């Protein structure tokens, strides 16, 4: 059904766009018909695609792409940040940079790169509740990395509690 829906949507989109291009003054012959039929096909294909996406969402929930999955991933990041915070005083500049980068390029990247999927599956309202704290935590961790890379290790360590409180806030969202 998904492929049929895609065919409807893409075909309708093309037809409607061709029709729209004929909306000169006066309107070109057949332009209105093509636009109307195209828009109807587009609408039908879009509705079918949304249904297919809902069905797919159930499947994706099994792959961790669900509210529980996101909460679990955020809890994992929170644990990594706690560990970093506990070890930060013992790390030199290189070690601090490397440890921060491992979390940024690892867990944060893994969750962040699926943001569109999460948005689609969770819906905007739920997604926003989780993502507010997540995004602030990610930025503050990047800030900590920049400071450590510049040799300002004390300042870099001082940012880590902010990272933790924001990722904890994201995890506590529901």
């Amino acid at each position, binding site marked *: 059904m998904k492929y049929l829906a895609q065919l409807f949507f893409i075909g309708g989109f093309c037809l409607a766009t*061709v029709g*729209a291009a004929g909306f*000169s003054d006066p*309107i070109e012959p*057949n332009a209105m018909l093509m636009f109307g039929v195209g828009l109807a096909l587009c609408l039908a294909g879009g509705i079918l695609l949304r249904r297919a996406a809902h069905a797919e969402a159930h499947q994706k929930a099994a792959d961790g792409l669900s509210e529980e999955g996101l909460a679990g991933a955020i809890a994992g990041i929170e644990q990594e940040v706690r560990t970093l915070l506990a070890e930060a005083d013992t790390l030199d500049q290189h070690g601090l940079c490397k440890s921060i980068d491992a979390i940024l390029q690892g867990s944060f990247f893994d969750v962040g790169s699926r943001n569109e999927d999460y948005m689609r599956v969770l819906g*905007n309202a739920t997604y926003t509740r989780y993502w507010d704290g997540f995004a602030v935590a990610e*930025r503050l961790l990047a800030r900590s990395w920049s400071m450590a890379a510049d040799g300002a290790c004390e300042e870099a360590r001082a940012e880590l509690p902010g990272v933790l409180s924001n990722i904890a806030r994201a995890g506590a969202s529901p």
Partner: protein
Amino acid sequence: MAPKPAYRELTPAALIGGVLVGALLNMGICFAGLQIGFTIVGSTVAAVLGFGILRGILRKGSILEVNIFQTVASSVNTVNAGVIFTVPVLFLLGFEDDINYTALLLAAVAGSALGVMLIIPLRKQIIDFERLRFPEGTAVATILRSPGAGVEKSRLLIGGIVVSAFTIVMVKQKVWGETVDLGEIFGVPATFNLILAVSLLSIGAGFLAGRGGLVVLYGTLLNYWVLIPAALLLGWLPGDLGSTDEMLVDVSSLTSLAHGDAAATFFSKFSHFTSRHVGIGMILGGAIAGILLAAPALKAALASLKQGGSASGPSEEVSLTVLKIGSAFGLLLLLLATKMAGGDSVSWGEATLVMIAGGIWLWVAGLVVAQTTGRTDWSPLSGLALIAIAIMMGILGTDSSSIVPAVTVGAAICVATSMCADMMADLKTGYLVGSKPAKQQIAQIMTCWIGPAIAVATVVLLWKAYAFGPEQAGVLFERAQLAGGSTLEAYQNAGGTIDQLPEGVPKLGAPQAGALESAIKIVQSGDVPLGKYLAGALIGILASLLISPGIGVMVGLSLYLPFEYMAVFGIGGIIALLLSRWKGAHWTENKGVPVAAGLIVGDALVNIIYAIKDVAQSL
């Protein structure tokens, strides 16, 4: 023991250095823009210079301080795009004596301030929640992070810069052509456009856009492989277009289209008549639907601003009070500028209406360019400016006395939209390196008035010194004739005639302003293709509501922009997706992003060097 100095971020060195570099870039790019017809965004160059000045010369800059430097420099520079597209048209249309320069300056400053104030509340939604890529913003962040990112990433970045710079030098020196016609090479009929630009910048930007590149490619193929041939077959070509020599081809027959320049001209002109307006409508519809869908995120963003930040601290964002005061100040300036520009022909009531409509349109247009720049690095600035001027002419009337105030307000809106795109890209860079948004926003608010003043002054000075536009030689000859005596003699001795510029005078064709001049004449004649805009908007809204908010914006943009760049952009996106599947997302991020960033930086650096060279040679 001396106390350890605080970590450097928002410092006087970053502000002053950023303003100076931004001012130099602004003047240079203004000149180049009037000469070649498009402007160059200077963020990457500003970042490289910031590194050189703060870390290399002053030896005390930090990553976040360079980010502030680059934010200020690009904000001072970038508004020239808005000014050189609109202001020169007043001179070309012969309104030199009717221009109120104070009003023009106030309008440009109002636009710059409003652009900053109105886009700040959208930061959270566009950067935090939607996580738009902003290819140039990402490239700048890669430069800023390079000292601490390890040797391998730095090598990849530099490799990308070298390859891209070499390619663009080859193109500039005309060793390689600007485009490659794959259709001719593979024997595909010329009706199916396969002309690709030799642009590694586009590949890099497409790579960073990733999946978005596929949507752009779809839109481009829809435009050039379906829409144009279909409209041609249906005979929808405007009657007066096919017969002009400019078309170079007999458009009455599909088979007569030959490869090469004729095909390129054909596609460019035909796309303008068929799809450009539908594309702009689609972008607008997509952006408006995106706002509706993002209501929860916007609510969160406004709540964050009301608190003066988020839970992470009180100073993460500039407060809503500052934004309200700044917006009110900007709107007041716009009102004054409209009244001053229009004089007795514009009543206070009309000026107020213009202010309200201008403010609303400015916000919509700002959102549109932030979205399009975030997804592709391109924005439909000229199309949005044209609509702005059409709206203003709709309120003030289409007679000659309304053109000066309409273009003055149009300049404000154009400046605002270019500011919105630039600011959002800088905030994206800030997100990636961890700058506090409030510090970037304060730096931009403090310096946003400087760029418009420099750009307006540069355009006026260039007009006074050299004139510009298609009739540049004629204008200068007329001036020399009026002055008479030795001035005319000197003009003629230097080889100047009514058709030919004297030696030493740079040719400033102002092609963008020429396009706007034609558009204003179309508005005056009442031939605005409103039906195409509305139909496009309806498709954009429907697609965005049903599938994804980005669909309408990206397909619309690919209907609007030329095939050769959009197709290459799409290829970049495909490469990213293939590599991601083949080598994994982490590999693509760690190895591919520095190379893609390098491709963008190399292209920008060489273009700036050529612009400086052109300015130096001309003066």
